[in-house]
């Protein structure tokens, strides 16, 4: 007998959860199974079958959900001994009073906590028998599902299906829904829906803050806390609805104090029936407005009457929109296809185009690793993804560097330099947050010198700004933000080095991307990027003078910049010491690198750890083992200014010497190997890059996903295998498909055009909407003046690629259907 679902909530207008899901799915969505709400295509699903407690920390990272504002790990709602549930809000850093401590992304109360009691026995994986358990991350819809069937000690079988999401359509909104079915028992079911703040956060609450309830909505429970070491408040509002088919209305109790919200709902469930708990959470901080508590309450007042279905629908729709410009489709390799979607999913989850005062930390919002700090990873490895898939997100990330420019200038000044010296690690203020020392695994205390010496980050930021400007022609950004960074970073480089008696400009005492070698002179990557930065600084000044003279006038006055100074940058760039040998075509990675002891890395294979762990910190500095792409990265980034014959020569020299001790390394090697046509090597590195998080045995996914490595994977596909390059007057492709790939198609945003590229073994087809013509180039020299609204196709010939042919654009071939 079907009974109507009975909402315990006092709101008369509540829909049943089942009805709401049906509205979302436009079909009979089974309440106990994801049904239409969850994507069915396995290439869009990440599934963790069963339960291995020891693997829980990694699983939580991989299955994290986020929307750029808030991130939440994929923890079990009821917890386990190895669970580390965590919620983070971008930009909310706490600062301990301990001397030497650095700000860290604050661990906020876990809003996903739901404990279930069946006849006063806990429903837990640790008790009884797990009959079925899986977590499903729906990458397409940005939703985390859990299916669990459990037999307890009394033989009661209970089935549970839950989903949760952080809304991409309304970034302050979080949803969590649990459906429970008593398969073979009639029992009293008690849900404990809770949210708890850590003690240290609670103790620092504003003295005048008291738990408050909104009289108009007594079902909304608030929790607010002050961020330690910062004048910031975070407020949560939580409302729960329990719906069930039983005849007896449940009992409900609420408990709240300044540290926790706990709501207990109890129902009597008959065998074969089910009940549904859905929870709506709103989060605001004082970064969003002066009254986060009121904002949260107001938000719930708006959201709750519209219902969960409306919220889910808007979220799903937003994700589908994102994928329109971000999804790389690959036919012929399902594992890699899933890895590419996993990468894009986490990158989309990490960015918030509406907040230009935060950036993406090394582990995004998926874990506490790296304390939420922002590195060069963001600009070099992640920003290119956003430039070509969602430029507003790229702009927000770069504006973060604009808002922290003052801190970079302070750092330069304190170190005795001019201009802007960006921190190696950055948090909310933009000040240097690199820890000063660490305890090595050997027990040795090591000084951390990256904050002082790994200065290439400044050029990396400038490089990303120029790429964004070149690919978007976003004049507003360039004139109002980007130009100042380009000028101040060039000014830094003009002060960081020294003209020496040999007539060259040297930059000494640095750490390049190869961090195995500290305090080196004339690191090739650093010097090449610094020279590039000096040139772009000078070019920026010229551009401003020519096109935006008022802007130049304002900026030059404020920065006390003269034409003489910017002209000097060009001169310094031209005498920058670049350790290149035209005979061998090799760049020496730094002065003295070629004299280091050679280590044959093959002798150490296979190995289960990074080379510096095996050899030790001191020993590795004496060898020629390279931690990660250094010269190789420079040849990719500065492709056009590197001699063509030197690109492959340096790759072939440095690749066997690289230990890939950084997760940033395999993707760049895949990219470069593809570009130089070594597909076997490219395939091997591509697999490594795809496995960094998904391989599950790398030993460090517990702290969160490797966001930069995910960006690197996207770059390997787009800039490597598709061979895409954005140039000043157009774009070019140099496609290289692996033998088992049947088709690689990708959308690309370039200068407001939504390009769509489809590469098959014998053809490449590029659709070019928009009006303005541009140059479309192909490896081998063929190029065409491409018109908007057309498609261009080229076919592979025995000697390379044939000429572009213009064809009529077709729906389905030239855009996503």
């Amino acid at each position, binding site marked *: 007998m079907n009974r109507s679902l009975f909402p315990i909530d006092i709101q008369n207008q509540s829909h049943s959860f089942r009805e709401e899901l049906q509205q979302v799915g436009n079909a009979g969505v089974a309440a106990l199974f994801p049904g239409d709400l969850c994507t069915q295509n396995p290439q869009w699903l990440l599934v963790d079958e069963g339960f291995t407690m*020891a*693997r829980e920390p990694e699983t939580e990272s991989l299955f994290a959900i986020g929307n750029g504002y808030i991130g939440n790990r994929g923890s079990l709602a009821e917890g386990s001994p190895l669970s580390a549930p965590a919620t983070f809000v971008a930009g909310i850093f706490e600062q301990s009073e301990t001397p030497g401590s650095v700000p860290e992304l604050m661990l906020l109360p876990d809003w996903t906590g739901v404990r279930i009691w069946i006849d006063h026995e806990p429903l837990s994986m*640790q008790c009884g028998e797990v009959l079925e358990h899986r977590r499903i991350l729906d990458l397409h819809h940005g939703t985390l599902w859990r299916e669990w069937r459990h037999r307890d000690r009394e033989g009661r079988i209970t089935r549970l299906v839950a989903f949760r999401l952080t809304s991409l359509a309304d970034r302050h909104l979080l949803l969590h829904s649990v459906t429970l079915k008593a398969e073979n028992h009639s029992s009293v079911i008690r849900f404990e829906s809770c949210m708890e703040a850590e003690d240290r956060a609670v103790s620092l609450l504003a003295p005048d803050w008291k738990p408050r309830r909104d009289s108009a909505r007594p079902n909304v429970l608030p929790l607010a806390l002050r961020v330690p070491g910062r004048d910031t408040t975070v407020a949560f509002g939580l409302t729960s609805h329990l719906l069930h088919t039983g005849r007896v209305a449940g009992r409900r109790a609420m*408990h709240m104090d300044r540290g926790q919200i706990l709501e207990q709902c109890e129902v009597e469930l008959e065998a074969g029936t089910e009940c549904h708990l859905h929870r709506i959470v709103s989060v605001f901080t004082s970064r969003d407005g002066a009254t986060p508590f009121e904002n949260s309450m107001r938000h719930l007042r708006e959201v709750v009457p519209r219902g969960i279905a409306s919220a889910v629908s808007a979220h799903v729709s937003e994700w589908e929109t994102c994928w329109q410009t971000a999804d790389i489709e690959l036919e012929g390799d399902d594992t890699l296809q899933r890895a590419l979607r996993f990468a894009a999913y986490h990158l989309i989850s990490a960015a918030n185009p509406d907040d230009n005062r935060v950036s993406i930390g090394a582990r995004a919002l998926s874990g506490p690793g790296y304390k939420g700090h922002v590195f060069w990873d963001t600009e070099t490895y992640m920003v290119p993804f956003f430039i070509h898939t969602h430029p507003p997100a790229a702009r927000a990330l770069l504006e973060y560097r604009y808002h922290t420019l003052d801190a970079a200038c302070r750092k330069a000044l304190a170190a005795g330099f001019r201009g802007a010296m960006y921190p190696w690690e950055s948090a909310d203020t933009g000040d240097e947050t690199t820890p000063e020392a*660490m305890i090595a695994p050997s027990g040795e205390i090591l000084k951390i010198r990256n904050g002082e010496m790994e200065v290439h980050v400044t050029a990396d930021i400038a490089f990303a700004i120029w790429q964004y400007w070149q690919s978007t022609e976003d004049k507003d950004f360039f004139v109002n933000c980007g130009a100042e960074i380009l000028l101040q970073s060039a000014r830094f480089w003009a002060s960081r080095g020294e003209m020496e008696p040999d007539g060259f400009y040297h930059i000494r005492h640095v750490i390049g991307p190869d961090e195995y070698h500290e305090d080196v002179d004339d690191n090739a990557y650093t010097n090449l990027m610094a020279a590039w930065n000096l040139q772009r600084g000078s070019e920026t000044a010229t551009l401003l003078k020519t096109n935006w003279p008022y802007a130049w006038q304002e900026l030059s006055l404020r920065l006390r910049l003269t034409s003489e100074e910017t002209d000097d940058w060009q001169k310094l760039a031209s005498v920058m010491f670049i350790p290149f040998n035209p005979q061998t075509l090799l760049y020496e990675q730094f002065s003295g690198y070629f004299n280091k002891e050679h280590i044959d890395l093959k002798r150490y294979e296979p190995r289960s750890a990074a080379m510096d762990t095996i050899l030790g910190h001191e020993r590795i500095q004496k060898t020629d083992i390279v931690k990660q792409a250094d010269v190789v990265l420079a040849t990719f980034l500065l492709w056009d200014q590197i001699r063509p014959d030197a690109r492959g020569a340096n790759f072939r020299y440095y690749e066997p010497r690289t230990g890939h001790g950084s997760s940033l390394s395999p993707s760049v090697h895949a990219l470069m190997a593809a570009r130089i046509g070594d597909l076997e090597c490219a395939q091997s590195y591509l697999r490594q890059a795809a496995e960094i998080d998904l391989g599950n045995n790398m030993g460090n996914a517990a702290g969160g996903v490797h966001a930069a490595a995910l960006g690197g994977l996207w770059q390997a596909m787009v800039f490597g295998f598709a061979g895409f390059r954005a140039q000043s007057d157009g774009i070019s492709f140099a496609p290289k498909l692996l033998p088992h790939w049947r088709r690689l198609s990708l959308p690309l945003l370039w200068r407001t055009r939504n390009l769509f590229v489809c590469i098959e073994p014998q053809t490449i087809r590029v659709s070019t909407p928009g009006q303005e013509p541009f140059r479309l180039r192909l490896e081998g020299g063929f190029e065409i003046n491409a018109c908007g609204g057309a498609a261009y196709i080229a076919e592979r010939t025995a000697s390379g690629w044939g000429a572009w042919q213009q064809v009529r654009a077709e729906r389905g071939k030239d855009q996503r259907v």
Partner: protein
Amino acid sequence: MTAAMRDWKAAIEATSGRADERIQSIVLALDNTDESETALPVASKLSELYQAVLHVAYVGESTVKRREKRESFNLNDEKTRGAVWEQSSGDPAEFVVRLTRELREPLLVLCTALGTQRGKNRFGSMAESIFALKPQRAVLLTPERGIKPWGLRRILLAHDGTPISHPAIGPAADLAQYSGAEVIAIHVAARGEERPKARGSLAAPLYVDQPQHEWPAWAEEFMKRVVAGGALRPGVHFKLKVIGGQAGSELADVAREQGVDLVVMAWHGHWDHADCATRVVVRNAGCPVMLVYSEG
């Protein structure tokens, strides 16, 4: 922690009903050689620490009366007070293993020299035979240590990051708790070996993007697992150390360098070749080694 959370955890503990695995019987295997007798001080001390009954399993070739055995081994009353003497019948190895299986929560203690037929880098024939039957928990020691008294101040817990190593955690923590010894949990980042593929493995990280973040996080994660594996006991002090190299020789070196009194490690039940890590540790650690059987 809130009251509700405390109730939840208490209910889970009560429902999951973990068995008390405290060692209750020490089985000391002896033959009629001086070498085998070197296991006695260790067995005796372990019996004291666990408050377990000491069973002396005599597996010598000739039948000797109990009193004669005691005299021939020069065992004084202090060391063997309350000991139960068991005489072998049938195959000696099977006798020892059967005895340990019959007893509640046993721990076998023996010298590697037990038995007579020894090949290069092999243990005594009887020791080999006993281990071929995969006892659940055993302490092995080489005869070089002699019969000097044995105490427990420092325990080396070898852990390769895999769930297979987890069973060693509890016994190490137990002993640390009973003896007040400190535990050095050691992880060897191995060369010449593939990364473990078992679900939930936590080997040393392959990618150390920024060591100032990776290592503290990894150490915390490692220790969380160690704690979840049963190491959280009152008064137990843990240290963590990571070294690179060949697992067996590195473990043995650290044991010697740090003056370790007992190495505790999981054992997969096989040591077919003479240079496998377990054999290398047993031979070279310079102290007894507790092997905890773990299905791999």
